[in-house]
């Protein structure tokens, strides 16, 4: 696979109250962003398990975004802060298994901030495109990393 034709697959876990709403608004504002993103809705980023991130990489994701409310604005008070902590620890874990930690990112996007949503996706796709395909999916024994 040449780098030019590499189309990364990125999973974005978006919290229902903010980031998912911003994605909706990006839609109604017809903002265009790369189609490499697959959104999975979650009630709160605090619900996201470290296992979800690892599993995504293991199955073949090239990048993962956890998108929550702005800090201080979490619908569940501090879910996004907990998510930030988990994302950060997972990023360290990625480094250990040889994946660039930039492949996993925590972002905070307010419900009205469609542009930030679109820009985040653009940036992430660019970043991951530069990094190339994630190696985890080629790992012979992927079970190990998520246990």
């Amino acid at each position, binding site marked *: 696979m040449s780098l030019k034709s590499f189309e990364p*697959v990125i*999973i974005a876990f978006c919290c*229902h*109250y*903010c980031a*998912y*709403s911003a*994605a*909706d*608004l*990006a*839609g*109604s*504002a*017809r*903002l*265009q*962003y790369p*189609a490499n*993103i*697959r*959104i*999975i*809705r*979650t*009630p*709160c980023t*605090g*619900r*996201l*398990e*470290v*296992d*979800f991130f690892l*599993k*995504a990489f293991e*199955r*073949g*994701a090239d990048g993962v975004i956890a998108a929550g*409310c*702005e800090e*201080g*604005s979490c*619908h*569940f*008070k*501090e*879910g996004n802060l*907990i998510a930030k902590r*988990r994302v950060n620890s997972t990023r360290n874990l990625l480094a250990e298994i040889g994946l660039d930690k930039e492949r996993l990112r925590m972002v905070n996007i*307010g*419900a*009205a*901030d*469609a*542009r*930030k949503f*679109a820009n985040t996706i653009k940036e992430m796709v660019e970043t991951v495109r530069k990094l190339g395909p994630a190696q985890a*999916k080629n790992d012979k024994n992927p079970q190990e990393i998520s246990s």
Partner: protein
Amino acid sequence: MQTVVKKKTGAVLVQGGGIAGIQAALDLANSGFKVYLIERDSAIGGMMSHLDKTFPTGDCATCIVSPKLVECARNINIEILTLSELIDLQGDPGNFKATVKRHPRYILEDKCNACAQCHEACPVNVPNYFDRNMGTRKAIAKHYAQATPNIFNILKKGHSPCKVACPANINVQGYIQLIKKKEYIKAVNLIRDRNPLSAICGRVCNHPCEAKCTRGSVDEAVAIRLLKRFASDQEMAMYEAGEILLAEEKTAAPGAKKVAVIGAGPSGLTAADDLAGRGFAVTVYEASSAGGGMLRWGIPQYRLPAKILDYEIELIRRRGVNFVYNCRAGENISLEKLRQDHQAVFIAAGVQISRNLGVEGEDKTGVNYGLEFLRQASSNDNPPQVKDRVVVVGGGNVAVDVARTALRLGAKSVQMVCLEQRQEMPALPEEVEATLDEGIKVHNGWGPRRILGNGTVTGIEFKQCTSVYDKDRRFNPVYDEKQLITLEADQIIIAIGQALDKQFTKNMGLETERGYFKTDPVTLETPVKGIFAGGDCISGPASVIQAVAAGKRAAESIARYLKNEDMRISRFEDSVKPIAEELLPSAKGKEKKPRSIPDNLAVERRNGNFTEIESGLSEEAALAECDRCLNCAQCSECLECVTACEQSAINHCMGERIIELEVGSVILTPGFEEFAAEKKGEFGFNRYPNVLTSVQFERMLSASGPFDGRVIRLTDGKEAHRIAWIQCVGSRDARSANQYCSSVCCMVSTKQALVATDHTHDLKATIFYIDIRAHGKDFDQYYERAKKQENIAYIKSMPSRIIQIPGTKDLRVQFYNQDRKFEEREFDLVVLSVGMEPGATVQENAKNLGIELNEFGFCATDRLTPLSTSRPGVFVAGAFQEPKDIPETVTQASAAASMSMELLVEARNTLVTNKLYPTEHDITDEKPRIGVFICHCGKNIASVVDVERVTEAVSRQPDVVFATHTMYTCSDTSLSNIKQMIHEHRLNRVVVASCTPRTHEPIFHETLKEAGLNPNLFELANIRDQCSWVHSASPNVATDKAIELVKMSIARARLLNPLNATTLAVDQRGLVVGGGVSGMTAALSLVDQGFKVHLVERAGKLGGNALELSYTLEHEDISSFVVSLIKQVESHPNINLHLGTEIAGVAGFIGNFQVNLSSKGEKTTVTCGSIIVATGARPAETSDFLHGKSKRVITQQEIEKLLKQGKFTAGQQNIVMIQCAGSRNSERAYCSRICCSMAVKNAIKLKKQDPDSNVFVLYRDIRTYGFREKYYEKARQAGVIFIRYEPENPPVISDENGLVARAVSPDFPEPVEIEADYVVLSTGIEAPKDNRTLADMLKVPLNNDGFFVEAHLKLRPVDFANEGIFLCGLAHSPKMIDENISQAHAAAARAATVLSKTQLEVNAQVSKVDQEKCISCMTCVRSCPYSAPFVNTDRKAEIAAANCMGCGICVSECPAHAIQLAHFESRQFNAMIDELFQVLPEENPEPAVEPVKSGV
């Protein structure tokens, strides 16, 4: 006598759909009342929906308000009536009859599915008021992106001045907008709807529309006639190029009623066209050899080529009109005969005879008449003879045409002479201009006296005309016979007017009036039934467009006559409603754009030929011209939206409706309007584009605003780096605006400065202020944080003026600085912090409802009954009561709801609806059977995503037993279809691929419930917002992605489980902790609502701090109020009073609390469903300023007591008050809110008691917010001296040689030293130290200052995050007595949402601990923000479902994977991830079922 007690109505009308109205509606509906939520705008949300971020938490306003909007829309007991006004209220408390006026939306609310196709189609851009006119919106649009209800509306203000001015009322704005869209054929059709002579009028109309065009007030009128011509020419060009065909020839149906039209002029042609279009058999009888009348014979070809005329007459002929030429009615065919052969006759014969001058010598050879001359000139075979020197008499269009025609036919010189001065000439100015250009001399102000010559003309003599019209504008020329001129001439052509042929009127035998046929002005019927007349033959010579209008009017009458209908009622002409002048677009700030001018044939190329002079506009010029239209009426009624809407949801003919509602009480929450900044002319708002209001700036900051959150200058679009805010624009300004303080602006600007700093690198913010009023909870800390930022400068000064610098358009702000010196600073942008005002219409409306207003025009209320208006049963909340911030607004809303509940207690649950659903189908042992519905969303999805391919692809997925695609899955028919498919295919999971679950999930959940399926067996894939709309350029990619998203949804759906909400029995008793004013008010509110209450007070008596209170700013005697409150509580049978009692422990959860009480060592347990914390606070202590050391240093509370008891006599003494004593410092960072008002209150009292005493107030910021500002002013007027000090330099009190206060003030050049007789300290309020104990028992948080922390600072001000526990009074934060009273009622209302239910439904999406797996580590207990997990008797974690909010934090934290969140289970997430990366085997399995592709 027997009195009949009428039963009270269990419904409440809430007027105003802002956050106050929404909160009141939710509280009422959740406590058993029906609510009508009335909103003036097309969506609820009010001012909050405009905001970007909120202070002091920095929450995104949209994020926090949107869920409330959705909740409101989902509640079946809240009926949202948008575009509505409460106009009348009759009846008494408990039984009102409310009259509501509903303005038309022009869109059927139950049909619109917000697909936005109308929006795409609408050509009209108007200033977007939501963004305060900084951007534009379409005339058809949603109020804002998240609008609730989620439907569109059309802005209409009446009809534009051009349409009103047009005699035929052509929809000018409409066709201009269609031209803008390059919909030329549609534009012409819209014109032809009112005028079949589109191309003709595009050339020769005298365009009265342009005279009224609003654009004229900016620069020049829009070139309307030329645009009409442009559109028509485009149509002709397309026809000539073979791109379009002419309409098929039609003939009237056999048996159609017959109409004869006499005359094929504009009037006759129009009537014939209209009537033929309606299916009548029309025959036009024309005396001459061709159609057109004056258009053909009177207008020269250089203005109107015959080709154009022939084209449009041909179009009319093809509509089925039969033309009989060379047939003169009255001569060749009698009227009698016409009446025999036809059911109706329309006489449109025009005027054919030229008037003569009646002067000496008119019979000489060489004298001709204009009409005859032109007629001859138009007939090719016999052109008129033209001599060398021609004089034309007359100043009208015919005279001009004659003169120019004579020139073209070979005259060597042509001169025109008329009575009128140049500007009075009846001819069109542009025609006169062209005449002069062609070398024709015009002599103005001369009347013919005699024609000279012997048998043959040699010249003509004129006398001077000194005036043409008399003072009543009647034609009445006055001559000066002494002033004469003579022109030599070989030919004189007289063109001074036309008249009706007398022979013709005689032949017709109809009644005449001043020489013209007599007709009814409305119907145009002559006195003879069935005979109508119109055009010049009834009015005298008039314009083409007037003739067309007459033809239209006659046609309407004739059609109705033939159908035996009333000819007078509701005619089209009556439907034309001009826009009120004040609603017309303002010329202010509009950029000037020159009017487009067509290329004309050069003068030197006109000689001797009749080539058309005007060439029409180029496409580019025409489109530019369309852009000049200001869209006066907003909606142009071009009807493009009607075509675009596939739901047939648009109806442009909707009218106003009046409805009546039976309600038990009314809550007024109309909100406020911002102060009109242009009233402060010195700041240049509306003149300087870079001066914005704070509301505009808020929209600018908003990511969904007109500039995507970029902070820019409106003049050049460049990022703004130097921004100034000016506070108190329209507030604290009794002389030129409003005296009161608007309460929130200081914080708004602080927030805006902070947010702008985030948005823009290198931003330098400057805030000009009088006092910074940061009196809310946590506000002062926020302000201090902002002040410490290097890039935000606070300058205490009120600028006097702003000057815009020419060229750069920078703004120079002039002000007096700290050193009292004049200074100027330059900025890129200035934001005016505009204050709040009650809307003018709101004020008037309130008066109509019998509501008293206060001196400022706000709703009049009393501080002790802050929610009651002057009319019993009508309550008020929010900014209409007094300017206030969101938390106080929301508090008052809940409080007003509680007032309504108290009034209507016996009617609770009488009018609410509980929907019944079929029994749920048990799917426990079933294999998944999934139905998939792919939505086209009209074109929204299907134009990009190949929905058939998606359907095909997903139908092959395992467990999918049915897959289809539908036009609008959310339409009624589609929803019925889903239900039918659920039954037919025994579906037990449903996946819809359409739009967002945020707006549409509830609709589909409802459908599943109606079909007997658990609503949680549903999954939505958002292929609109996430595919078609955001990848519209790559349909294939979007389709692939859509397939993946749907497959992921299917994978998840497979694992969905039905969730059943469990119910809990509710203990309907309340418990209030604290017996002060707040606690007592809350308890009384609850018992008045019909609940039993435990009131627990630690002290041995009721009353709390209020016992110490003697008077307030507004009330002389507060203690009688407190005493009466205590009496009511003590004597109420339903209040179980626990005095001298403390809370010893709390267990349980919402609906079922067990509270241990301890009284003198004696323990009891009571139960309740809800708890209200009203434990209060206390005056703070201080040892500063010699307090406790000198007897003459006392506190405000102490002096108040002394004053009340009459023990304090001021008697010429010096009293020094020190504000912020011990607060707003590092030790106590917050502002206590009440002290400034308290100091002002006591200062006024002192001055009143002894005007000779000197009262000094040493302060940092005077925070007399809202109407309390009035008393600050009063104190200053009374001579109280206010001296500002800075925290770095606090006052010093010494008591060495008598008490002396020393202060350094930035406002005084020298330090101030005052010999004080008394020093009075404002020490503020502090939280009791032992709040912690109660907080721990309730598992609720305290802030750094020891006050209880509510669930959300803005929108849940009296709730705790923990369900069922509420908060009010000083325990929450320091505040005024009226605010405590409001909060107490609010807490009661919130508690009532729990207590009013016998059973409480517990959220089903909750977490559950697997007891087997739990390792008792208690991580969940620690991590839950809501204290839902607890340790059970097995020493394992368990989650109280009633307390669980469903965030899932515990699930992901649990190290043993022992917890799962229902509906968001780990395996459901994993299934989606797995599905995404599923590599399908090469040999695709056959689809499980043949996909059903119909359904579209």
